[in-house]
């Protein structure tokens, strides 16, 4: 043992360990850009990972169809009943139709935000060490992706790019406690902040905090991005309010939000690489 501790090999092991510590310290200063050794490993492994993900998606889709036949049938019946209710409530639906037209405008990303530039991406990796459904996508700095770029789908907000290398990027989802997004309850127009919380994330929900005690937010309200802070464009769908509760401090309310996108299953996303007011501090009072 003493001989080993004095040997050259032990010194090399100490150098390796110091190198790992050095990498970690340096990584904390690079603002999310992957280090050179990581980029080299990623460059070698990414094509194989991409192929593996494509294969898994194809096989999974086939088996999913077989295993989910019962649930698809039940969902079909449920949708029939919903459709019948919509037809029967025509007068009420005129108001809903007006809102629906407005929502279509919001949901149609290019219609409401023609200034948005985005890059499509495919999910190629999900790591067991990531607790909140973070994933890796197959586009990186070479495709114009940067740390902090919003990630969305046609249905709504997914998350934000947290790390980038040349050909891949890591996405932090809106269920992560580190995630923070300026949002708005579309019906009550109350502003708030959408963040992740571990206990809610286990059920697939996130949280909209800092709602005033007088807030009119209620179950079923749509939560959209406010554009404040310049991180996300405005009017992107975040999710739907499931419940409104009082904070433990009793000075504000918070809403439990069901995200519009199932981040656990998402396979194709868009990375917003540029939009108007990106990075600028927008207070939301510019229209007044």
């Amino acid at each position, binding site marked *: *043992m003493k001989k*080993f501790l004095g040997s050259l*090999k*032990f010194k*090399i*092991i100490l150098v*390796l*360990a110091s*190198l*790992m*510590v*050095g*990498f*970690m310290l340096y*990584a*904390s200063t690079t603002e999310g850009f*992957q*280090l050179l*050794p*990581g980029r080299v*490993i*990623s460059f070698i*492994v990414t094509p*194989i*990972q991409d192929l*593996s*993900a494509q*294969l*898994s*998606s194809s096989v*999974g889709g086939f088996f999913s169809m077989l295993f989910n036949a019962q649930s698809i049938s039940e969902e079909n019946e449920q949708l029939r009943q919903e459709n019948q209710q919509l037809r029967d409530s025509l007068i009420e639906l005129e108001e809903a139709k007006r809102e629906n037209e407005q929502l279509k405008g919001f949901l149609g990303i290019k219609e409401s935000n023609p200034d948005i530039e985005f890059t499509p991406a495919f*999910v*190629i*990796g*999900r*790591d*067991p*060490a*990531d*607790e*909140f*459904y*973070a*994933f*890796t996508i197959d586009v990186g700095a070479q495709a114009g992706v940067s740390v902090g770029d919003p990630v969305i789908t046609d249905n709504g907000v997914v998350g934000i790019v*947290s*790390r980038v290398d040349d050909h891949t990027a*890591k996405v*932090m989802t809106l269920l992560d*406690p*580190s995630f923070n997004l300026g949002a708005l309850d579309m019906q009550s127009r109350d502003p708030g902040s959408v963040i992740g*919380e*571990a*206990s*809610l*994330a*286990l059920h697939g929900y996130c949280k909209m905090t800092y709602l005033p005690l007088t807030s009119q937010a209620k179950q079923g309200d749509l939560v959209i991005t406010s554009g404040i802070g310049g991180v996300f464009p405005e009017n992107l769908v975040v999710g739907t309010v499931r419940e409104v509760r009082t904070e433990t401090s009793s000075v504000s309310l918070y809403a439990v939000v069901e995200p519009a996108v199932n981040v*656990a*299953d998402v*396979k194709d996303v868009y990375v917003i690489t540029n939009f108007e007011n990106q990075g600028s501090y927008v207070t939301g009072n510019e229209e007044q």
Partner: protein
Amino acid sequence: MKNSNRLKKTAPLLKWGVFALLALALYLIQVTPGFLQFGMVKPAALCCLPCLVALYEDVFESAVFGCVCGMLWDTSAGVPFGFFGLFLLALCVLTSLFVRRYLRINLLTAVLVSAVCVGFTLFMNYLFLYALWGYTGMLQLFVKSLLPTVLISWPFCFPVFFAVRGMQRWCDKVRES
């Protein structure tokens, strides 16, 4: 005779080549979306391989292999680069130094070493990335995500141990022939 000498020289290279391919295969199992995924839980299949290799290899080789496997894991995990490299390097050194010296190398030892390796590594990830930051709901995360991840990762030690032991026995046989 010539072939036998050539095989003796290339056997270690072949052995490490197989270990490298095994590491890559386990990494792909670990990160492929939707594969062996149960909610937030996915197996950390790569985690036990370097420690099981360390049961049979010298300290230096084990440390380097552990470091490389850790760096491979770092590229996909949301951790600072070098995080898993450092912990797997340390675990491999400890395994090679102490387990080989004081314990018999058999399936039971492999199971224990894997359990410690998987549990320790994932716990360090949980501690430094989530628990230390004061987020709410950490206990629930520990019980409903971390523990199940450890439980479904640990069975990978069985096939990996047999593969590593088989490779080691083949190398020993070639060396002795």
